[in-house]
């Protein structure tokens, strides 16, 4: 099956099954409640993301693996399975208590944590759910929505400095810290402090992991006193 082309039918069929009707008799158009091209992009992406939205009488969740959940119950063509959304990860496996605890931990951190590919613009592979408070974007905006952290969020006047800090970090195989202005979804500017480090596969720098702290309440001058991670944690 071509998941990208078939996923909308699967969602409609799942909703019809939940209502005990046939797909042709759904009383509304799915596109009134969600942009169908967003679902197409989701299932075309090689990520562990999911999208949830409301339609009349139901909550729908679609994962990047083309799994469809109606009110927390998984639907597969022709049948429903008893696996509920609260028992699984976005990739479809059951979520362990440890994973749930880790997700809560990330969400409650006073910073946004991420992992990005070491490519131009640093495409995001994972970002904690609280990124919305910092950036105005939901995690899926970075993972499947086409928002690029480097190109869309870092202030153009600060890009060169951020690039230099990351490049030096990769060259020296040490952590980096850099302050810069971040442009949020509603076009406001925030000073942030980013602390990160490259992850290597042998000598190849594959990813960057790190944390971003909002300095809005601190101010860039006071933030200058923050010690560099090289001094705090000199070893990797």
């Amino acid at each position, binding site marked *: 099956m071509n998941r990208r*082309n078939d996923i*909308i*039918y699967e969602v*409609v069929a799942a909703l019809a099954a939940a209502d005990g009707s046939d797909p*042709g008799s759904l009383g509304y158009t799915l*596109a009134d409640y969600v942009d*169908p*091209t967003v679902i*197409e*992009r989701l299932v075309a992406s090689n990520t562990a993301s999911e999208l949830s939205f409301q339609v009349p009488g139901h909550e729908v969740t679609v994962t990047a693996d083309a799994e469809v959940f109606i009110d927390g119950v998984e639907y597969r063509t022709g049948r429903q399975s008893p696996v509920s959304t609260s028992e699984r990860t976005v990739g479809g496996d059951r979520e362990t208590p440890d994973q749930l605890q880790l997700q809560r931990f990330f969400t409650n951190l006073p910073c946004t944590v991420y992992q990005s590919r070491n490519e131009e613009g640093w495409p995001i592979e994972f970002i904690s759910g609280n990124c919305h408070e910092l950036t105005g974007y939901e995690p899926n905006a970075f993972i499947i929505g086409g928002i690029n952290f480097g190109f869309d969020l870092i202030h153009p006047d600060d890009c060169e400095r951020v690039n230099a800090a990351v490049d030096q970090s990769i060259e020296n195989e040490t952590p980096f810290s850099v302050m810069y202005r971040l442009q949020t979804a509603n076009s406001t500017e925030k000073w942030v402090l980013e602390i990160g480090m490259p992850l290597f596969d042998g000598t190849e720098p594959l990813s960057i992991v790190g944390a971003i702290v909002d300095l809005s309440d601190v101010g860039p001058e006071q933030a200058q006193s923050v010690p560099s991670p090289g001094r705090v944690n000199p070893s990797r």
Partner: protein
Amino acid sequence: MMETPDGGGVQDRWDQLLQLLAARPRRQLISSLLDTPADQRLPLPSAAVSSPQLGEGDHDRIAIELRHQHLPALASVEYIRWERDPFCVRRGPRFDEPAAVIRVLQESADQFPDTLARDGFVEAHESS
């Protein structure tokens, strides 16, 4: 950034256009409307899938996909207009954008490599 006469970004328009043409029923709809007088409505789902081999079940399925997926996507950027009853489609105010691309592709079909066989793009097109 380059802008269109109505203030939109040209780059965004291209990204949007190519994304919307990344589904065969949507390409087929634009192709069918190209072969039709500008103000004429075309019945659905046949305007999106003209293959005579399709059975009734296939038509039911494509009708659902059109209604919930392809037609709203194309209509959201004004490439087309569509109606539920009777189920039909016609050109929208920005039809010229996808039409120009589909037309160029149709006229260049003989230059496609075998790996991009024409019938994977849209249904066979008699006039090219």
